[in-house]
Structures are given as C-alpha cells and as structure tokens.
C-alpha cells in the first residue's frame, strides 16, 4: 500500500498499482494508467467498457465485474475485448477503471 501521483492527483494504490479507493479516480488518471498498460489512447469503445465496469462495481459493492458480465452487459464480444485490452482484459480494465484487481476468496 502506498500513494502515487497520477495525472497530477495523489491517489492511494496497492503494491500492484491498482487504486484502492475508486472515488479517487478520474478520466485523466484512466488515460494515464492506460498508457502504462500499453494503450496509447482510449477510444469510445474503451470508454464504453470502462464506464460499464465503474457502474457495475458501484452495484457490486466495489467488486470489478467478470469478463462475462462485461460482454453481456456491454454487448462487446470477448474476442473484441481482448483486442481493446490485450493480454488479460479483466485485470487491465479493472486497473484503468480504478477498481480492485479481480480476485478469488483466498
């Protein structure tokens, strides 16, 4: 646990760079983290997914949605999701959207 400054804002992050308080997130932070994840610019398609995840997490008590929930909820196909957020979209989207890493119970 620690803090770091992203896009001019000091936020709390865990050891893997995930924001620990979703309320500290903003769109510039998302763009900055996306760059670190190898996504140069966030397109409308990216935002559709990010916005959905933020909304769902709100409903799910802060828990980031699973890939299946994202595909059904947004209508974006899984394959396409891997195109938008290469190599592990569930984890990448969660980090960019300022949500916790997808995790199990242990």
């Amino acid at each position, binding site marked *: 646990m620690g803090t770091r400054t992203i896009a001019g804002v000091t936020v709390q992050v*865990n*050891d893997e760079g995930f924001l620990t308080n979703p309320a500290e997130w903003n769109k510039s932070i998302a763009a900055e983290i996306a760059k670190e994840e190898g996504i140069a610019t966030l397109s409308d398609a990216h935002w559709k997914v990010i916005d959905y995840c933020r909304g769902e997490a709100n409903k799910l008590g802060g828990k980031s949605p699973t890939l299946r929930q994202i595909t059904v909820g947004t209508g974006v196909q*899984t394959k396409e999701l891997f195109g938008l957020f290469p*190599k592990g979209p569930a*984890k990448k989207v969660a980090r960019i959207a300022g949500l916790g890493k*997808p995790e199990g119970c*242990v």
Partner: protein
Amino acid sequence: MSPIEVIEPEHNRVKLAKDGRYLDYDFLVIATGARTHPEETPGLQEHEWHKSIYDFYTVEGALALQKHLRNWEGGRLVVNVVENPIKCPVAPLEFIMLADWFFHEQGIRDRVELIYATPLPGAFTKPIASKQLGHILDEKNIKVEPEFMVMEVNPDEKKIVSYDEREIEYDLLVTVPLNKGDEVIGRSGMDAGDGLNYVPVDKHTFLSPTYGNVFVLGDAAAVPTSKAGSVAHFAVDIFAENFVRHIDGLEMHHKFDGHANCFIESGFGKGLLIDFNYDVEPLPGRYPLPGVGPFKLLEESEMNHWGKMMFRWMYWNILLKGAELPLPAKMSMSGKWR
C-alpha cells in the same frame, strides 16, 4: 410440488409451471441456488464428455471421474475454471491438491503432470494468502496458468484454447463449468442484466433494493462473498432474526458481514482453514479459540484435516438437522493477526 414458471414481483405472485396457477405472497424468499452450465463452452459437453472431460460438481460427473481415475495410467491432468463466480471457490484447488496426493498413493505421480488453468491472476489472489500459501502449489509441483479465459475446447485434439490464443493440451480435463443462477430469475427479469441469473440484494440484509418484500438467500444472491455453505449458514442466522422484525415493520438490526469459513484439504493428511468476511481477507491465526486453536488459519496442519473430518459428522448430524452450532455468525478478529 411444482417448479415456478415466473415470478411477478410487481404483482406479489408466482406462477406455477405445473398447472399455470398463481400463488400470491406477502413475502417472498428466493433460494434457487446456482448450477453448472458446461453447454455454454463450445466443445466441452460434446462427444468426449465423461470420456476425457469431466466435471465434479454433479453427482454423475464426480462418480464418472472417480471411475476413470481408478484405471488412469497417467498423463497431463488440467483443471480449468471457466469463469467466476463459482460455488465453493476453493474446491478446484482442493481437488488438484488431493489429486497430487492420490497419484502419489497410486505410485504414478511421476507420470502425472498437474496444471491449474484459472481466469484469475493466480491460484491465490488475496495479498496475505498469496504470501502465506503462494509456495504450496510449487512444492506440490502443480503448475498454474493464470488469466486463462477459455474460449473453446477442442475435444478431438484434446486441448483448451483461450481468447488470447493460448493452448493447453491435456490427457484428462477436469472442468469447473460456468456457474449460473436459476433460469427463473432471468425469465422474471430479476437478474443483474449480466446473464448470470443472480438477484441483486443488499449485502447485509439480503433484501431486494427494488422489491421491499423479496429476500434472496444463498447462492442465488448477487453478493460479493463466496457462494459457500458456511456463508449461507451464517447468513440464514442473521436473516431469521431480521425477517421477524421486517414482517412487523421494524428496522432490521442485524447486518450480515459476509462471513465465510472453509476447510481446504491439502492432501497427505493435512488441511488449511480460512475465515474471512466482506472487509477482512483471510488472515493467519488460530480458530475458534484465540491463541489456542486447535485449528490454524491460513496454514497447513494435520489438526485442520481432522477438523474437516469432524465437520463431516457435524454436517450430517447437527447442521442438516437444524440444530444450533455454537459458532457465531459474525466473523471475529480475535485470534487473527496480520
């Protein structure tokens, strides 16, 4: 007895499938559970189903797998979790650790390769559990393939393929298929809109935020805790007291904290025990008596294994009979440390 065709929460009634009759209700408690859906993954439940591909979340699957393993001469066994959430999230880990032990006992462990392919970033994902238990699968020579999101199974070539085009070949595939709530939830438009058929509820009271007279208990509820027997058990304790107050129009005093308590058999006569809730991840410690135990949290021990064996008796003779179990419904921090 009849299945329910549809729930009409706006009209406070359910329609029976058998004769189309309507039953009115003042309060509705939904406990329709979760089931596995192998048909949702292409190639899974086809001609190799229960030949080289097995599940263990159904009685038929578990028995067929047991029979298959009796004569299996070794090869690569892959355990694959299709997608979370699943019932009893530690069961796949428990299965693969017990498989390691079983093949040792059979004298063929050197001819078996064990691979655990999970959609999560690792076998253990909570920070403290990863630190405490991260080594355990390595020591057992069980390989982990993280973030493996299975797209399809190729039953003829015996391989599973992920969306990012990774392939894992297997001789024996043990799958934990997609889990979904009951279809009646989706048919009634009461799901969260994600196709998984779980009902959104307040995570502390299980009351639907949309319908003030509908509660959802157990696996059917979309709450951020494990779909596990212990959770349902503790949750019902809290619910029962709340429900009586709710009927009388009183505020519900008791808040469920997401408490879960699970033994994880790790093989060779040992086991692990985890105890956690919505806010507190599994921590090391002693349970149920602080400082004494006899069970060790987040640590392997023989006593934990005996605890599990004892629990088997308690399950049939105490829990299922509805007798009181002297364990508090809410998680306690006493006896735990960080």
